[in-house]
């Protein structure tokens, strides 16, 4: 397989396409709203109208606007149809011939779409994720070809370092530096692991990327393998994501058949194999050393670092672990160049971030926005405020490891540093909007309950501390606590944060600390009056 064959596949795919394409979302969100049946009905309606020669229906990946699913977009005119019912299929096809149509229409200029900057979600809603030809026609696998043919591994790492990309799993470690460390580490074998154990409740960015554009992640993993000198990759996916798993399996098979995965990729000496590992429901496995334990078939319990996985990871060999969204950024950076990527975002946080915008907000769904955008723009402009127009109280970012940011701080720009300054974290991208009806003490208790349940039990501060935090919060919630116990709560939070072994325990107090910081009056109102 060489570049001319890649171009030929793309050419054949473009020639095969009809002039009009009806894109129907069949990702998990829209699937639950009837997307698959709708796709079938649309195909039937096109046949019934006798227009198969000019119109094709395509089951595409996530378009982002999940709250209004199932979504249908007709290209090339980019007509958006929302909440389409299967019985409206014929009406929709009729509308393309100029007949009247009562289906809700979306406005492509709506800020929800217009304010986004899709890089990793560029193909979402554009291609059928189950056909590699569509990915190749959209420019897929050219970055991998370019990397293995024209660049030395250190040049790939250099490009990535210059791009300023940082880990999208939450901590924001510079990706180029991580790759360089693994490349430098000595080992008989090396591994690349894609962390798709998206456990944060309220987050589904990685799910959507894996479901909508699986090849983009595979291509990123291959380039990573080439750069660090690994020949085996593992893609660890949550067991709760069956559609993502089946699409990835299909994608791996297709890439292997074309010689894009396996031995002698693109007729070079580079070999790379990818296997899927299905998670079994443990939040702690998002922590990298726990993830390694889980891939090795053991209980997902973390171990102290150093040594870091970059030096001693899977079976003791140097291992590169990157999040799904990080790996999805690789091919666009190699294609577009480091300078282009570094021109997006802020001084310290480059590029875009995908957020799952949910909760008490009018427009729920997935958004990809440039770093540096303010929380207000996200919540008010893209999200459209609360559904019933009441005031937004706060947004929660970073899930159980993050914090609540009150509306008074919505001028905060989204970047790793600024979100940390206001007591939250970037996290993996969950953004839950809350209005006045959300009880912040109860919310803190909800998160601590989560961490208590998900604590692996290895270290005492986390195992016992989260239980005690939960007990204290329950007492406060029930109105049994005194004000002095608020200080105990804060002290215990600091203790758990400072002494836990891994990120789960270290960040478990964050939701409590941030709500204590900004909504202390809600805690105080529940405390018993001073005698």
């Amino acid at each position, binding site marked *: 397989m060489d570049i001319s064959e890649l171009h030929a596949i793309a050419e054949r795919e473009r020639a095969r396409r009809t002039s009009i394409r009806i894109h129907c979302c069949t990702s*998990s*969100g829209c*699937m*639950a*709203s009837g997307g698959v049946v709708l796709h079938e009905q649309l195909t039937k309606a096109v046949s019934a109208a006798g227009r198969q020669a000019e119109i094709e229906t395509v089951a595409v990946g996530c378009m982002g*606007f*999940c*709250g209004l*699913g199932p979504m249908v977009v007709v290209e090339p005119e980019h007509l958006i149809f929302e909440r389409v019912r299967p019985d409206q299929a014929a009406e929709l096809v009729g509308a393309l011939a100029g007949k009247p149509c009562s289906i809700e229409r979306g406005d492509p200029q709506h800020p929800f779409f217009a304010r986004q900057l899709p890089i990793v979600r560029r193909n979402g809603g554009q291609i059928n994720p189950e056909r590699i030809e569509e990915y190749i026609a959209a420019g897929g696998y050219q970055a991998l070809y370019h990397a293995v043919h024209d660049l030395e591994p250190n040049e790939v790492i250099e490009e990535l370092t210059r791009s300023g990309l940082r880990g999208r799993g939450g901590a924001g470690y510079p990706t180029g530096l991580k790759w360089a460390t693994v490349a430098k580490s000595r080992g008989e074998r090396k591994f690349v692991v894609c962390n798709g154990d*998206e*456990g*944060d*409740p*309220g*987050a*589904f960015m990685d*799910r959507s990327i894996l479901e909508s554009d699986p090849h983009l992640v595979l291509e990123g993993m291959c380039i990573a393998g080439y750069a660090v000198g690994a020949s085996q990759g593992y893609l660890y996916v*949550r*067991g*709760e*994501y069956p559609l993502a798993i089946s699409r990835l399996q299909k994608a791996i098979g297709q890439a292997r058949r074309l010689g894009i995965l396996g031995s002698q990729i693109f007729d070079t000496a580079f070999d790379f194999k990818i296997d899927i*590992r*299905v*998670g*079994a*429901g*443990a*939040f702690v496995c998002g922590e990298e050393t726990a993830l390694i334990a*889980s*891939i*090795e*078939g*053991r*209980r*997902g319990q973390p171990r102290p670092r150093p040594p870091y996985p970059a030096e001693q990871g899977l079976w003791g060999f140097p291992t590169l672990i990157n999040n799904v969204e990080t790996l999805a950024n690789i091919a666009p950076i190699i294609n577009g160049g480091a300078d282009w990527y570094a021109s997006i975002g802020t001084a310290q946080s480059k590029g875009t971030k995908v957020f*799952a915008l*949910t*909760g*008490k907000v009018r427009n*729920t*769904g*997935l958004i990809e926005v440039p770093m540096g955008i303010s929380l207000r723009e996200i919540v008010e402009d893209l999200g459209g405020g609360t559904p019933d127009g009441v005031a937004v109280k706060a947004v*929660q970012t970073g*899930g159980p490891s993050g914090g609540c940011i009150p509306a008074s701080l919505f001028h905060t720009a989204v970047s790793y540093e600024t979100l940390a300054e206001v007591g939250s974290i970037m996290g993996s991208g*969950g953004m*839950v*909007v*809350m209005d006045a009806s*959300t009880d912040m003490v109860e919310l803190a208790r*909800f*998160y601590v309950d*989560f961490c208590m349940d*998900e604590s*692996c039990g290895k270290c005492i501060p986390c195992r016992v501390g989260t239980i005690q935090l939960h007990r204290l919060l329950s007492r406060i919630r029930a109105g049994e606590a005194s004000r002095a116990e608020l200080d105990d709560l804060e002290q215990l939070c600091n203790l758990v944060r400072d002494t836990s072994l891994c990120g789960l325990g270290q960040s478990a107090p964050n939701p409590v600390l941030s709500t204590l910081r900004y909504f202390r009056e809600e805690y105080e109102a529940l405390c018993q009056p001073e005698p």
Partner: protein
Amino acid sequence: MTTSSPAGTTLQTKTQSSDDNRLKLLEATMKRHQHRPDALIEVLHKAQELYGYLTPELLISVAQRLHLPPSRVYGVATFYHFFSLVPPGEHNCTICLGTACYVKGAAAILGELEQQLGLQAGQTSADGKISLLAARCLGACGIAPAVVLDGQVIGHAIPDELQTRVAELLK
């Protein structure tokens, strides 16, 4: 008696042969992984897919085939939420308790179902008809609150409608 006995025999042979088949399928999965101990989670996934839940006998046979101590297999099977050591109900209803669903009232939905069924989340009714489960996050936050009823995801769930659907399932 005479008429029912042949039917009974066929049924029994059927279960046995499907039993054998399941064992064969499980063995094939272990073979594909060359009986490597690190394939334990993959093998348990397959075992649960085939049998519905993990019995002690099943865990012991997996331990033997993968050359692992039974304690290790039991430890892994009980560590991960996904594996169940008790039989699932005939029907199952999973309420998502992720943050987005929670903010949109999932706790109330769960509470009402718990009352309706007289079960706590994680329990199966005494007659084995239905299991009530709570999930941490289904990743369907865009259509919160989300509920899964017998494998079908229901978005924007409304408590009353859900209770009616559950009641119909149990008829």
